[in-house]
């Protein structure tokens, strides 16, 4: 320790450790990232105007209040049966009474029974009286189950019921296109809320191997606030910053996250109005106005607003200037900034970051 030069060498060595790990390693990995997505498409650089906008964003320090990185959450799954198996008792046992008690489930199996009876009745050499009685019984049973979703029940039953028989069962005799797609896309969710793979894997195997049901697993954004609440469509990854001249992921969310602002805010005028004065039109916001990015001149008596004027809509559907009695038009700088903001989007999946489904679950849990 007392040998003076060694301190210098030691310090340099110690500093170089984190330099290799945090600068050289990740940076050279990111440097090697490809713009090619592998599906015949690639990530494109921004347009010239949007690239200018990146500079406006940087100059004004927008990144102090806005992030443009969406964080990752968790994928959950929902099990959706698309076609029930033949064994009703076994399916009931696997999915549990909670879902088997649903009228759709009963009705679907009733349709299966009707279809089977129909087949038996029309088969050659059938006992006409007996099969007819069975068919009537099946029809009566099916009709005794009242549900508004009989088309969905038909869809997941996997059988085809057409013509007069359909009429007798309360199904449309001539199906419209909408009805047809309802039947084709029918699903029956048999999971509570969104469940993790560990929770559902046994049920999934039993349904597939033992009950012979067909189903799909829907990956859903589960515990994923940025996707569920804040308008991002997936997490931000390294390649999202590939074509940035200056990467500005941001630090704080005083304002909203902008990783998908281009996907959310497609109306250019609304974007201008927001930048010009985010409180315009009585909106609640604490973003400072950036009026100096616009041309502002006082309106002449009775002048109609030019088409490129920035407007806000009044409550009764009319549009008025964002600054009453003035005509506000975007300058090159605000057009560039808006173009940059519109180029920020993550509503396209990448191989390393697929888009999760965002929707209400079929069986919401308590309090959801």
């Amino acid at each position, binding site marked *: 320790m007392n040998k003076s030069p060694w301190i210098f060498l030691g310090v340099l060595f110690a500093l170089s450790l984190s330099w290799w790990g945090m600068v050289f390693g990740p940076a050279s990995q*990111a440097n090697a990232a490809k713009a090619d997505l592998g599906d015949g498409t690639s990530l494109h650089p921004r347009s010239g105007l949007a690239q200018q906008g990146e500079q406006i964003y940087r100059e004004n320090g927008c990144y102090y209040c806005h992030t443009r990185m969406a964080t990752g959450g968790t994928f959950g799954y929902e099990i959706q049966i698309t076609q029930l198996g033949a064994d009703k008792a076994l399916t009931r046992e696997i999915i549990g009474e909670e879902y088997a008690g649903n009228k759709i489930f009963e009705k679907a199996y009733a349709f299966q029974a009707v279809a089977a009876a129909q087949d038996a009745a029309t088969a050659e050499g059938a006992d006409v009286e007996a099969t007819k009685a069975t068919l009537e019984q099946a029809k009566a049973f099916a009709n005794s189950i009242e549900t508004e979703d009989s088309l969905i029940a038909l869809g997941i039953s996997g059988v085809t019921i057409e013509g007069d028989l359909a009429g007798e069962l309360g199904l449309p005799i001539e199906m419209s296109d909408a009805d047809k797609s309802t039947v084709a896309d029918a699903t029956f969710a048999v999971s509570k809320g969104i469940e993790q793979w560990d929770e559902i894997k046994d049920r999934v195997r039993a349904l597939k191997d033992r009950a012979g049901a067909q189903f799909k697993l829907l990956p859903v954004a589960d515990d994923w606030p940025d996707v569920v609440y804040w308008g991002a469509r997936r997490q931000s990854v390294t390649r999202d910053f590939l074509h940035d001249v200056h990467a500005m992921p941001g630090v704080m969310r005083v304002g909203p996250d902008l990783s998908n602002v281009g996907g959310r805010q497609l109306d250019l005028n609304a974007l201008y109005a927001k930048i010009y004065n985010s409180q315009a039109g009585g909106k609640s916001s604490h973003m400072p106005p950036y009026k100096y990015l616009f041309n502002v001149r006082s309106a002449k008596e009775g002048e109609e607003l030019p088409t490129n004027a920035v407007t806000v809509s009044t409550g009764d559907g009319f549009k008025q200037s964002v600054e009453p009695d003035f005509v506000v038009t975007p300058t090159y700088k605000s057009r560039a900034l808006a173009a940059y903001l519109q180029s920020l989007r993550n509503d396209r999946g990448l191989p390393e970051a697929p888009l999760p489904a965002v929707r209400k679950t079929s069986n919401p849990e308590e309090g959801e």
Partner: protein
Amino acid sequence: MEEKHSNLNLQEHGEPAAGNSQMPVSIMVVLTLLGYIGCYKVDELNANFAANVHAPFGSPAEVASLAPSEAELIFGKGKQIYANCQGCHQPNGGGTPGQIPPLVNSSWVKGDPKLAAAIVLNGLQGAIVVNGTSYNGAMTAVGAAWSDEEIAAVLTYIRQSWGNGEELVTAEQVAEARTMIKDSGHQGTWNKDSLDAAGFATPE
């Protein structure tokens, strides 16, 4: 350190020195253990230092399992290439009534993919019947410069879109079609008869 609040005491102790107390061995052991546990955790969670694994994923295998399958990639690529076709056949594959035949539910499309590949490669003119309607137009050899993979991709897209629901087309099938064209000695745009003659069975 007896100083009045208004008068700084300029008397000072000598320069400080450092004592020689040793770090207790027990603490060193604990610290080493903690460091080791940390290393173990990093080893477990580092996802092989892969550049493409971002939270919430934990391993390259997980990313791979959620990435689009080979078939989806081919379909996606075909969709891009179809931009060259939709000017005539329309984005919905419906064609133009009386002028351009539809691709939806067409037996020309849904049959042997080699036929469709041959048409994309060399073009087609003259009278044909599609879905019971006669057409008499001309299609250029749009795919003459495309690779086998590109033709397979666009045919896959056409055969799997708009309810056509056919199997995907492989690059090998396109290559076979090329060989058949070469063997037949045919050059230039097809018509129905020359297609039949070259062994591409056209539907009636």
